[in-house]
């Protein structure tokens, strides 16, 4: 019923690492929740069910805990219902997660032959005899990626994550998405093992798309938690890029490179857990003090909330993949695995991997821009609203939760070799070659890439040299005894005020304008001009809202088609009796005519004649006069 191999244990460790700081944070947050018992019950069941998913050893247990996880998280989103949008978001989440569940169920029903309590090894036997393995692969993709939030099934994330209480958003984004990644690892390795090349390419493409789409929509967002949720899409994309590269290398026979890529994906999974939980906790602390999720209402919080600001900064550096943070190390590994694609002989594949490299590099650049925006607008400058002015540091428990999580982020950076050795063991358990000795051939100082002539990075040396040089300079600045005077900011003779600062919308302005073809934003610009002068105005109001393209294309068009069909069904169902008679007459006419067309020799003249008769009959009898 349960199994505890290294892969399961790694994910158990991931859940526990994320949960311990979260428990502190959650108990600090508890006094502000009205339905305490409801919250606590679902919160602990949620954690328990995630642990259950990663240790379950047969389909029935897996599906049970999976569904429990979905239901408890759905209830947790509904903890604090203050606005109608929460209910809408929860409904959307419920729908999406069960959309995925259906495909998982289909997958399991096929690979278990209906006997849901056989082990994963037996499933592999049945799956290898199944005639359409790609269909199984797509069932898995739809099932797990709708939970993990990869394109095009990512649309629920920016709605559901912001509505949940902050500790829950931290858990959902930090851990629940990773449980879906666990599912990918478990079932692709254990059940569907020999992978065709196309599967890896599919995952690589989805990953590259998700990373770009996630970061682009994060940039256009002013709701801080929705921004972080969009970054989860991006990071899931990065994990999938590593995963896809691993599958491609495995299929092509580069076993060592394949293990390296999978380790990179696992490492990024851990890193994303750490920094995304921390970001959600810090954002939650800010939200808790200012009572708004709108970034335009923050500003200057670093003075009132130094601990929150510091932890947010650590996480922001890490998520932007800046050296020597842990986020940088895992992204470095993924880059190295993609750069090793020059060994591949298939030229078209090699060329297409270039585009994935481009997507990942572009994502890195945009993520930096996005986190400068998130950090700068939230914590720096002057307060933009009264709530931000009177904000103060959150309570001790919440603070200690954030600080603990910051330690986990830092530990992932300091103890990289230890973690990588562990991930290596998991992959050996899944039947892959061991690469630890190749990544760290000469001690823990240098981290090598596996590819021939690959690069090397030395995280600890980088960290110490950066710290050393910075501290040396600061020390000499102190010794130098520079006189310091405090004065107003210079703003061309005007006084600086909260209103003259850059806004989040303004900060992302150039990028939004460049990607206008993608965003197609709704802009509302109202200004009261003075005496008809275009450039002189007494007041102006600018509002911009970006609705994700995927939502417009996939989701709204589906809604529109269904609406259209149901409208006609409705029309049909509410005819009068006379109309029904007319309809029956018309259908009989059509049957007769089409019988004649098919059974006799075809002639255009009779066909046109009959067509006209049909149309006239429909017009007169069915549609009638326009009233």
């Amino acid at each position: 019923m349960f199994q505890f191999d290294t892969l399961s244990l790694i994910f158990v460790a991931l859940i526990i690492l994320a949960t311990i700081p979260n428990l502190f944070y959650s108990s600090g947050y508890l006094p502000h929740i009205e339905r305490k018992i409801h919250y606590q019950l679902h919160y602990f069941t949620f954690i328990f069910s995630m642990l259950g998913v990663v240790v379950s050893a047969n389909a029935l247990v897996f599906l049970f805990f999976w569904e429990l996880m979905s239901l408890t998280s759905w209830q947790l989103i509904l903890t604090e219902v203050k606005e109608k949008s929460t209910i809408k978001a929860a409904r959307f989440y419920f729908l999406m997660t069960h959309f995925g569940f259906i495909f998982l169920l289909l997958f399991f029903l096929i690979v278990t032959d209906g006997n849901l309590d056989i082990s994963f090894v037996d499933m592999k036997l049945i799956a290898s005899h199944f005639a359409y393995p790609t269909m199984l692969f797509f069932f898995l993709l739809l099932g797990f990626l709708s939970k993990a939030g990869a394109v095009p099934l990512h649309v629920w994330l920016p709605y559901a994550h912001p509505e949940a209480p902050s500790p829950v958003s931290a858990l959902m984004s930090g851990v629940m998405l990773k449980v879906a990644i666990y599912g990918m690892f478990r079932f692709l390795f254990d059940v569907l093992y020999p992978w065709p090349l196309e599967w890896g390419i599919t995952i690589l493409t989805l990953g590259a798309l998700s990373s770009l789409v996630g970061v682009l929509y994060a940039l256009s967002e002013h709701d801080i938690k929705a921004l972080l949720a969009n970054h989860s899409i991006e990071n899931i994309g990065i994990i999938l890029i590593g995963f896809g590269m691993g599958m491609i290398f495995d299929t092509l026979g580069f076993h060592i490179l394949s293990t390296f890529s999978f380790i990179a994906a696992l490492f990024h999974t851990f890193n994303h857990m750490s920094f995304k939980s921390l970001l959600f906790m810090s954002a939650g602390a800010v939200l808790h003090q200012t009572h708004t999720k709108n970034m335009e209402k923050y500003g200057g919080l670093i003075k009132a909330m130094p601990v929150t600001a510091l932890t947010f900064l650590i996480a922001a550096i890490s998520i932007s993949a800046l050296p020597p943070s842990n986020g940088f190390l895992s992204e470095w590994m993924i880059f190295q695995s993609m750069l090793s694609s020059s060994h591949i002989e298939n030229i078209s594949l090699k060329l297409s991997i270039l585009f994935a490299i481009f997507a990942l590099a572009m994502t890195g650049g945009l993520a930096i821009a996005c986190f400068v925006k998130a950090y700068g607008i939230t914590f720096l400058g002057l307060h933009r609203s009264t709530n931000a002015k009177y904000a103060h540091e959150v309570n001790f428990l919440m603070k200690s939760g954030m600080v603990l999580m910051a330690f986990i982020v830092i530990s992932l950076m300091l103890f990289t070799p230890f973690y990588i050795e562990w991930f290596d063991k998991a992959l050996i358990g899944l039947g892959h070659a061991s690469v630890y000795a190749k990544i760290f051939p000469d001690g823990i100082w240098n981290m090598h890439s596996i590819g021939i002539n690959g690069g090397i990075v030395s995280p600890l040396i980088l960290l110490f040299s950066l710290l050393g040089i910075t501290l040396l300079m600061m020390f000499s600045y102190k010794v130098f005894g520079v006189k310091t005077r405090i004065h107003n900011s210079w703003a061309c003779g005007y006084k600086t005020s909260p209103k003259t600062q850059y806004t989040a919308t303004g900060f992302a302005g150039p990028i939004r304008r460049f990607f206008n073809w993608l965003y197609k934003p709704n802009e509302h610009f109202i200004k009261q001009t003075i005496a008809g002068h275009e450039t002189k105005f007494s007041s102006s109001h600018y509002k911009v809202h970006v609705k994700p393209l995927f939502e417009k294309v996939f989701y709204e068009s589906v809604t529109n088609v269904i609406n259209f069909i149901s409208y006609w069904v409705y029309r049909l169902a509410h005819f009068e009796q006379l109309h029904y008679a007319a309809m029956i007459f018309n259908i009989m006419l059509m049957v007769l005519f089409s019988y004649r067309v098919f059974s006799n020799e075809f002639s255009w003249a009779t066909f046109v004649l009959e067509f006209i008769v049909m149309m006239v009959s429909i017009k007169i009898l069915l549609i009638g006069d326009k009233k």
Partner: protein
Amino acid sequence: MILYLFSIVLLALIAPILLSYIKATKMVLLFKRPISVFQGYRNFAKLMHKETIISEETSAITTYAPFLVLSPLIVTMFFLPPIVHGGYYVSFVDAFTITGLISLSTFFLMLLGLDSASAFGGIGSSREAFISALVEPAMVLTLFSISLMAGNLGMGQAGVNLAEHFPKEHMASFLFAGISFFILLIAENGRIPIDNPETHLELTMVHEAMILDLSGVYLAIIETAASIKFVIFASLFASLFIPFGIEFSAPIAILIFIAKLFLIATLVAFLEVNTAKLRLFKIPNLLGLAIVFAFLSLITFYVLGA
């Protein structure tokens, strides 16, 4: 080892001279009386004697960020390809780490811009974020391409390999990568088609806008960081894309390297005199060109092997 440290100190010392040299060359070309090439040192000395004025709106970020802007760049200088034969060098650090360190420096510079609560800082940070987001992919692809030709992802070793076995058979992709890297050199250092380092006009400012509120020692640190960034890019260009001269004995090799740096500076000065600054929303076209050349270089390398 001594040569290694000497070359780093030399590069750091030559950095302010290079920027002053560009300015002097431009002034000569515009029939003005040129400034001395040691103007950079004079400015530095002047700023070091001034008191630091800190804006009252700022926070701890302004106190620490200037050091964090400079230190990643100093660390990067230790990873550059060697300028003399046989000297010690850090062979293994790859392009992605170098790009990351430069981004780290830019990250803190952008935060610095937003810290002073003035609209100028915001303008600068916002534009810098826009430009550096587009520079990143071109940078990674270009350096990937050159390291493929050199047969090593480590930048130091790549420089040596290129100097020892110049990839004549890959001349086409080498040239494409060179063009792309030169555009990046201009973009990352805020030279004219992208940003005008000499004006204080809000229409054109990028780098200057972010540091408008700094003074005294902090300004000196940021100015040093700007000049070191230029020398990093110039010496990467000199070692990777003009890879000769290293095989001579140490003094001659160093002289050749310095000559290459001044050649690049002259090129930049000529370009600055002859082009107008681009509008902000035209900049993606230029950077797109860099991305296209980087792709072309890689595709030529893979498909044609040329």
